[in-house]
Every structure is written in C-alpha cells, then in structure tokens.
C-alpha cells in the first residue's frame, strides 16, 4: 500500500514537473491574505499576480484592498489588518528606524523603477524657459536642471512671495527626488528636525504634502507652483494645459527604485512559506509585465483600468505605461524605461537602494543624529531581504518560469557605484557618509539641526 502511494506521488510530481506548473508544492502557513494598495499604476504586479492566478499557483488566496492613503495603509499593515502592502520605498525604512511610526517592516521584493516626474505651473515655466538652452530642433534641451528654476525662486523671494511646491508624503520617493533636483540646482528645499517636522527649516522652496489626485487642482488654484508626483498626474497637467512637466525621475536618477512590497518582520518569521509564495507570485507578475518588450502592457492597462484597481480611464493609464512622455504640449519624447517592472533586475531588493533612501533621510534631517557607515548597512540588511527573493527566484527557475540570467545571483546587494544622477555626483552605497559629504546642500558629518541653524558638534 505504501509502495503504491509512493509511486502515485512520484507519478504526480513527475507530471507536474513536466507541465512546469507545480514542480514543488509550497504549503503556505497562512493562505488567506488581504493585501493593501494605493490606486497608482505601480501597484500593477499585485493586480497581475491576482488576475493571472500567480498567487493561486502558490496556494495563496489573496484579496486586494485599495487604501485611503499611505498612512492608513502602513498603520493597517502594522496592526495586522493587512498582511502586506504596496509601499513607498521610504516607508519600511522610516518605520524600522522609528521615523513617524515605529514598527519593523521588511521587504523581499522591490516593485518597480522610475515612474515620477516634476511639473511646474505655466507661469513658472514661462519664466524658467528663458534660462533653458534650445536644441537644434527648436525644443528646450533636456534634462532640465533646477538651475533654470533658481532665478525664478529668487525673483519670488525678492517680491516677498514664498515659492511653494507639493510632494505626496514626507518619506516618499517624490519628496527625495524633488529635494534632490532642487538642491542640485542650488535651491535649498529645507531641513527637518525632531522639533519641526514641516521640513521647511532654511528652505528656499517650501515643500508640503498634497495627495496625488489633488496636485493639478491645487496647482491650478495657485496654492503650489509645482509638484513631484507619479502618473497620471503629470500628464494630467499637460492635458488640462495648466502646467508643464520639466523632468522625469529617470533623468534625476536613472533607474531609481520606486515602490516596494512591505510586510511586518513578524509576519515573515511566522509565515516563511507564505512570504516565499508571495514573492514568487510577484516576481512572475513582474516578468509578465515586461516580457517580450512590454508585449503584455496593453492587457495590463485594461486590467488596471478596472474600478477595483486603479480605475482611471485606460487611455490615461496607457500614456505612462507604453513608452512615451509628453512634456510641453506637443513635445512628446520617447521614454521606454519610464515604467520598469522587471528589466535591469528591477525587483531585486538591493541594499544600496535602501542606503540611498537612508542617506536622503539623513541629508534632510529626518535622521537627526549622525550615523556610522556600518549603521546604514545594518538598517538596510534588516529591512531588505534578498535571501527570500533569491530563494523564490531559484524555485521559479526550477519550475521553468524564469531563467538564471533573470536574477543577479552573484551580487552582494550593492550595485556598482554610479554617477547617473542629474548633478553627476557619484553614489556608492558602501560609503554613505562620503556620499553625503559630496553635496553642497544637506547635512553631513556631525551636523545637526539646532533650532533654525545647522550646528556642528
């Protein structure tokens, strides 16, 4: 009898290995999950993993639930109402080091690269344009640096008017990108301190939080002069004729990491097989999104346009997901990598990406005290979990869903040093303090914010 059962099992596993759908069975400890997301196109891997039944292939029964805002989403992951969520890359890091909310959030999967842009109002654009060289085709030369914006900000200052801009969340990629771009052009975006979390200490441009869908309306009302946000809210400004996107985040930092999939540390320890299954399903979704030169993007756009996911009109979503970007009305330029879900090892959780976010938190005073290089590495290792990622990748290769070349098996978690930033500064994640030293604007070394001043110690 036992012999018979054995052979049946072997037969079955052979058949399944052959069909390459269930080479090795995962037994998730928890198989009914609720996952949160914000209505943005970069939640795509979640929607695809569900609609293409990649979750079910891992034995996971996932309910996706749209959340009202980033704060609610994070809180619900912490309380366990959500098992995991689509998060801003800064959120798990900030939560883990206790900036804002304190909780140990981790990520085994990075969700995408790029996808944001900075838009300014028509009035600001008209004044900026005078400072931008024109190319041979008569169009402004890209990438546009904040140098062109600096005289405008100074003019505002001279007139006694504050120059205000919007971003979506204090620890959002958007905040750091906007700050990076402004500072690279010599405009101080202001510092945070433990006593003043407005982030406007010594600021030349005043940055404040505005929810993404309200950006265009807020700018149209004149409350802000520009903003940094994901799609479709930059293209929306072009459509409405109320503003001009001046630079995409691809030009600020080529192939920068954007969102991550966040879980509590407790969850990953209690349910390791579930975590592995989730990671496998998400990697498959990311592969699907990018395979054959984005061949599936159109179908993805249709899925995302359903009311339960992003819900916006398909044409609007398609605009940012199919490879072009429109700056000034009629100035449409190719942007093949505007949204990357899998190419360039997009989903691997690199420590160096985590460290970059931490350097920006330190640079602008969200991390108030100076930290050793080792500290950055330690935090990155406690939040980013490439081991789980690689284990999931290995299983996918064994099952025939991916190939060895799809994953950076030989990396130590640090990307090579790069200077593909708008200011050409070189970033090496292994030396965060040296990196901070290379910026003319920003906290470095022993500096701390004391009241309204930078004080050395």
């Amino acid at each position, binding site marked *: 009898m036992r012999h018979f*059962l054995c052979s*049946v*099992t072997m037969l*079955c*596993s052979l058949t*399944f290995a052959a069909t390459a759908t*269930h080479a090795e*069975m995962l*037994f998730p400890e928890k*198989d*009914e999950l609720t996952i949160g997301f914000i*209505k943005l196109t970069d939640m795509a891997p979640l929607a695809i993993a*569900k609609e293409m*039944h990649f979750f*079910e292939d891992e*034995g996971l*029964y*996932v*309910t*996706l639930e*749209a*959340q*009202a805002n980033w704060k*609610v989403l994070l809180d619900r992951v912490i*309380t366990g*109402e959500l098992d995991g969520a689509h998060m801003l890359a800064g959120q798990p890091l900030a939560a883990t080091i206790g900036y804002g909310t304190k909780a140990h959030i981790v990520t085994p999967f990075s969700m995408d690269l790029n996808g944001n842009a900075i838009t300014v109002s028509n009035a600001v654009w008209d004044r900026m344009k005078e400072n931008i060289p024109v190319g041979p085709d008569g169009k402004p030369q890209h990438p546009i640096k904040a140098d062109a914006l600096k005289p405008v900000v100074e003019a505002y200052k001279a007139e006694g008017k504050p120059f205000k801009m919007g971003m979506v969340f204090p620890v959002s990629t958007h905040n750091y990108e906007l700050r990076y771009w402004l500072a690279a052009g010599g405009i101080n975006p202001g510092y945070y301190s433990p006593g003043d979390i407005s982030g406007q200490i010594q600021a030349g441009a005043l940055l404040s939080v505005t929810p993404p*869908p309200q950006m*265009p*309306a807020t700018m149209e009302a004149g409350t802000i002069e520009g903003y940094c946000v994901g799609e479709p809210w930059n293209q929306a400004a072009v459509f*409405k004729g109320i503003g001009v996107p001046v630079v995409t985040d691809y030009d600020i930092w080529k192939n920068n990491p954007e969102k991550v999939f966040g879980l509590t540390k407790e969850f990953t320890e209690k349910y390791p097989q579930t975590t592995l299954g989730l990671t496998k399903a998400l990697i498959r979704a990311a592969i699907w999104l990018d395979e054959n030169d984005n061949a599936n993007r159109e179908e993805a756009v249709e899925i995302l*346009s359903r*009311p*339960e996911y*992003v*819900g*916006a*009109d398909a044409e609007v979503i398609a605009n940012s997901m199919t490879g072009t970007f429109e700056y000034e009305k009629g100035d449409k330029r190719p942007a093949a990598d505007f949204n990357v879900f899998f190419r360039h090892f997009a989903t691997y959780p690199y420590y160096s990406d985590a460290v970059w976010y931490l350097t920006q938190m330190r640079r602008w005073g969200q991390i108030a005290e100076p930290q050793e290089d080792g500290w950055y590495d330690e935090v990155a290792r406690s939040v980013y979990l490439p081991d789980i990622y690689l284990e999931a990748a290995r299983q996918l290769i064994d099952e025939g869903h991916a190939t060895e070349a799809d994953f950076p098996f030989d990396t130590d978690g640090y990307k090579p040093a790069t200077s593909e930033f708008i200011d050409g500064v070189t970033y090496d994640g292994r030396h965060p303090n040296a990196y901070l030293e290379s910026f003319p604007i920003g906290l470095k070394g022993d500096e701390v914010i004391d009241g309204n001043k930078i004080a050395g110690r």
Partner: protein
Amino acid sequence: MTIATDILDPEIAARRERRIARINRAGKVLAPFGLGFVVPLLKLAAGDTPSEQWADLKQMLLVPLIGILAFLAAWAYLAPKVQTSLGAIPGPAAVFQQAEVLMDDHFAERQKAEAFYARQDERNQMLIAEGYADRVKVRPYTGKPTYLDQIWTSLLTVALGFFIGTVIAVPVGIACGLSKTFEGAINPLIQLFKPVSPLAWLPIVTMVVAALYQNPSDLLPKSMVISAVTVTLCSIWPTIINTALGVASIDRDLVNVGKVLQLSTWTTIRKLVLPSSLPLIFTGMRLSLGVGWMVLIAAEMLAQNPGLGKFVWDEFQNGSSDSLARIMVAVITIGLIGFFLDRVMFALQTAFTYSANR
C-alpha cells in the same frame, strides 16, 4: 362590461363590490410605499366608474409623473452644460446605462467566482492525489464585492446599528419618561451628544472597537461593527427623546389605576407604559433609522468600510470618465433605499398606532 349589464345582474355587481373592497384594503398597504396609484388602476380594471378613478389617478400618478419627467428633462438639459475635469456631468441616460453596467458586472463577477471555486477544487483534488488530503480547505471567493454586494453590506450594517440603537434607546427613554431624576441626569448628555457629527465619532469608535473587539468573526467583521456603532451613536437620540416624551405623557388615570392595583414596575411598563407610548416610540425609531442611513454612508466613505459609501469614495478616487455616472447611480440607490426604509417604519408605525389607540 357596461354599467347597464351590471345593474341587471346583481351577482356581478356584488362580486365587483367585494373586489373593490379588497383593492381598497390592499391600497392601505401600498399607499405608504408610494404605490397608491396602483389602486385606481386596479379599480379601473375591476370596472369601477372611470370618472372617479380618473381624479384619483391624476392626483396620484399623473402629477408625480410630471414632476419626475420635468426633473429628468431639466437634468438631461443642464448636465452637459457643466464641464468637470472628468468630462461633462452625465445625464439620465448615461446614469441608467451605468446602472446596467453595474448589474452586468455583478453577474460577470459571479461567473469569475465560479471559475475561482473550480480552480480551487482542482488544486484540492491535486492535493488529495499527492497525499495531502488533510490540507484540503475551501476558501471563500477573494474577488471584489460587486455593487449589489455593497448594497447588501450597507443594509446589514444599518440594521445592526439600528438594532443596537433601539435596544439602548428604548429602555433609556422609558427610564427618562418614568423618572424625573433620571431624566435630569441624562438630559444634558443627550443635548451634548445629539449634535455630534458622525465624522467626529468615527475616530473614537474605530479606536475603541479595535481595542475591545479583538477576534473578529467572518460574519461580523470589525469594519462592520465600527460603522454600525457609529450609526448607533448618531441615531439613538430621536428614539430616546420621543420615547421619553411618549412615556411621560401617558394618561394619569392609567398610571393611577396601576398604582391602585399595585402592579410591579415591570408589569406597569409592559401593560401600561409600552402600549400607550408605542406610537411615539415608533416615530422616534423612524427618525432614527433615517438619520442612521444618512450617517452610515458618511461613515463608510470616511473609514473606507465596505458598503455603498466605500463604493462612492472608490469611484471618486478612480476618476474615470464613468465615475460620475456610477456615483449618481449610488446616490439614486441610497435615496430609494432610504425612502423604502422610512416607508417600512411608517407602515409598522401605522399598524401599531391602530392597536394602541384603544
């Protein structure tokens, strides 16, 4: 069927009388639901004098119909003149079309659910085949709730909130009506809490429920309890006030009789107080239900709890070109359900008022 033959045949006339009497009785039930116009139509069909029915019909069907048509016409004419960032405001036709889409969507989702169960079944079969029969489990469908599901959730939530509210408000109201001291103690609190908006209650309720309701069951999720308690807090006041008023205004003779007979408090409440104050209690409950339904939608929108409120908010956030029309479908649904709930309470009230007026 002419009058002349009716006169000639008394039996037919008698039968018609009976039929009309039945129709009149049915009319008492239909009228509160705004279906009073059916009565003259039925009477016409039964062969009653057309001229009399015509007057009724004009009042009950034609005039309201003109009102509705005028509104639809004004809507259809004015809507395209307002341009929003999502395009023109949808007219009645677009809204009706979206209502159909939402219905189709419901049935499409049901089919997806079936496919989901089939896939799950297949997987479970495979588990059994591989010798893991103990791991077989049937999980509920994980797809999105459809529009009809959301309506159902909202109805359940408001029923729960209303039930909790009534259970609290009626005894408190009776105690207020019976004892001046108790009323004195509770009255300032009623005055203080009555005007508080659901939006202010919600954060407190959310925190308290989260702290007290640790292990939610599938039948009674935390979000539903939060919405329901918010509904309760906002809607109990009319019931308390009306109950107290009803109890306080019982005929003094009845109370004296009770004293002479030395009835226990419980018997007094059951035999004297409740029957005579029922009409006002029902008035209070009817007001409470109305307030509760309004509050529920706001609570669901703010807390993102499942239900019609969440549907509205999700569509607002989606910002697709269909979103406005879908929100309007929801508005009309909310109105119709609110009207229906009110009429149900009204019918109950009429029923009880009749028996209490002895």
